[in-house]
């Protein structure tokens, strides 16, 4: 049995407290009126010289291009109103990106776990308890994301412009999508997705624990069937979730491989966290049967899925860049103009770095190498989610400051606390999994 060390517990509480403070500062600092918003932007200009002044000269973010065409007083007023909304969105968007990112890690691990179960993989059963521990965060993480979505529907924020009846009334493109993209159906879908994922997680965990105590393999077989069924449900629901929760912040824009793209991001982040948690537990002298071949396999997945992510990122980018259709290309124009550093920095962190670092077979077995690559991959995929949400919600007013870092720290603390609490409830090694011997002798 594993008990959470006090250091880790206190560390996670400190992360949560500091994070909560950062989130609170973000919300308190958000402007209430147009004047305050202008004052904030003006004070930034003093601080940074011309940097932000140049950004102000740009047209407002995608979807508001028509407003920029108007001239004179009307334009100024609508621009200021828009600025206010962007700044009011900022703490919300920071919170949402952080909440979704850590939720996405546990969902990615759940998909990876279901694949292992459905494939009856022989190498991984030793890591099942670790994976189940990480997926335990699905419940609090999912509820938090759901609450943020409900608050968006209740107009507490303007993350999703299509929820604003006023916007829809003047927007024919959104009107055409109202049958699907309306607040009620949106929340019903979210509830179905979350319900399905959480149900599978809890049920599969129950079967997995019951298998340890039983004297036949019926629980294992039942788990296999549920896992295969879950994967079908997951691939459809994950794709729709990515349209709903992420793509719809840009309601005019669409990409047909977006679901896959988000899937690659969550899978690689999830596998990275499995590797990091395993290495941490091993460093405490736990999981004695996990050898460096297991770490090697996880690192191979980190390497491979990083390239898979890049492939999807580039496929999406190149087609849109090449065809240059205005309503599509605006998505990347915004990102390249206003988000140049996080946009290209993310490609370096998610592709170049893992490719060069993990290419050598021997490095995939060196723990600190895997952890180092893992930290860069996780930061890169945080930036990936950041780039998905921020351009449409805060536009060129983005920054990575106190609210953003606060949200990351808070959810990191919660994630660590919850995951390790779940890990401490049951023995870390499954006893009666039919493949446990194979996993124990796994050798590459």
């Amino acid at each position, binding site marked *: 049995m594993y008990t959470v060390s006090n250091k880790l517990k206190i560390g996670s509480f400190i992360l949560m407290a500091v994070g909560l403070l950062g989130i609170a500062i973000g919300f308190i600092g958000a402007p209430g009126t147009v004047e305050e918003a202008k004052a904030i932007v003006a004070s930034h200009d003093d601080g940074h010289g011309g940097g932000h002044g140049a950004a102000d000269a740009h047209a407002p973010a995608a979807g508001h291009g028509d407003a920029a065409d108007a001239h004179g007083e009307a334009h100024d007023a609508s621009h200021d109103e828009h600025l206010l909304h962007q700044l009011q969105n900022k703490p919300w968007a920071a919170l949402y990106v952080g909440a979704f990112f850590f939720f996405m890690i546990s969902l990615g691990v759940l998909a990876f776990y279901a694949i292992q179960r459905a494939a009856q993989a022989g190498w991984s059963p030793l890591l099942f308890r670790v994976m189940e521990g990480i997926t335990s965060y699905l419940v609090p993480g999912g509820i938090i994301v759901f609450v943020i979505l409900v608050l968006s529907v209740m107009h507490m924020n303007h993350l999703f412009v299509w929820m604003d009846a006023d916007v829809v009334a003047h927007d024919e493109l959104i009107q055409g999508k109202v049958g699907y993209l309306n607040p009620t159906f949106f929340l019903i879908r979210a509830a179905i997705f979350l319900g399905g994922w959480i149900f599978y997680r809890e049920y599969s965990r129950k079967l997995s624990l019951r298998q340890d105590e039983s004297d036949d393999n019926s629980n294992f077989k039942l788990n296999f069937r549920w896992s295969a069924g879950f994967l079908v449900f997951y691939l459809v629901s994950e794709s729709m979730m990515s349209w709903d929760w992420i793509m719809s912040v840009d309601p005019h824009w669409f990409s047909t491989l977006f679901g896959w793209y988000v899937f690659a991001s969550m899978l690689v982040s999830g596998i990275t966290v499995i590797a990091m948690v395993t290495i941490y537990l091993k460093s405490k002298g736990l999981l004695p049967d996990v050898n460096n071949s297991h770490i090697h396999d996880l690192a191979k997945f980190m390497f491979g899925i990083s390239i898979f992510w890049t492939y999807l990122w580039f496929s999406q980018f190149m087609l849109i860049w*090449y065809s240059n259709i205005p309503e599509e290309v605006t998505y990347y124009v915004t990102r390249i103009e206003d988000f140049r550093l996080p946009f290209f920095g993310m490609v370096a962190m998610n592709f170049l770095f893992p490719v060069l670092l993990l290419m050598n*077979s021997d490095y995939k077995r060196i723990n600190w190498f895997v952890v180092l690559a893992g930290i860069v991959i996780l930061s890169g995929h945080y930036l990936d989610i950041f780039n998905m949400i921020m351009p449409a919600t805060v536009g060129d007013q983005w920054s990575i400051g106190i609210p953003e870092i606060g949200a990351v720290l808070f959810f990191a603390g919660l994630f660590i606390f919850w995951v390790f609490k779940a890990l401490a409830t049951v023995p870390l090694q499954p006893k009666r999994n039919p493949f446990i011997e194979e996993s124990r002798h796994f050798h590459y």
Partner: protein
Amino acid sequence: MASKTIHAYYNDDDVLMHAVKKVKAAKHHIEEVYCPFPVHGLDKAMGLAPTRIAITSFMYGCVGLTVAITMMNFIMIEDWPQDIGGKPSFSFLENMPAFVPIMFELTVFFAAHLMVITFYMRSRLWPFKKAENPDVRTTDDHFLMEIDVHGDEKELTELLMDTGAVEINVMEKNSH
């Protein structure tokens, strides 16, 4: 210089693996092992130096990437400037996304093909090459371990018998 060579035959890869470990433990030098298929971990058990083919593969990949960049720059930008996707920038960097698939493919092409050719050359496999394996059964269902005899021949034969060899031939050494 040993004048005699022993050929020990095995018909199972697991038995062969154990035999190799035992023979190595008894401090005999295994000249070569002939297998009908690659046996996982045999190189480590025999104590062969790690392969360097991955390094050559990486270098070939870099060559491929360079060839692709140079070629696309010459064809599409310098020699006959192309208006790609309605964006007549005529700059390599700004048109780079359109070249990425070619850069990727040529990297893979060079790495894969040159690595295979390197492997053949390093294994001394070229056209019209006479087969080096001493027994045709090693291309079907038998494994052959070749050991030079230093010292007691009988003791070595017994050791090999113990490891589960199905046939043992002692022969005068002849150069290939």
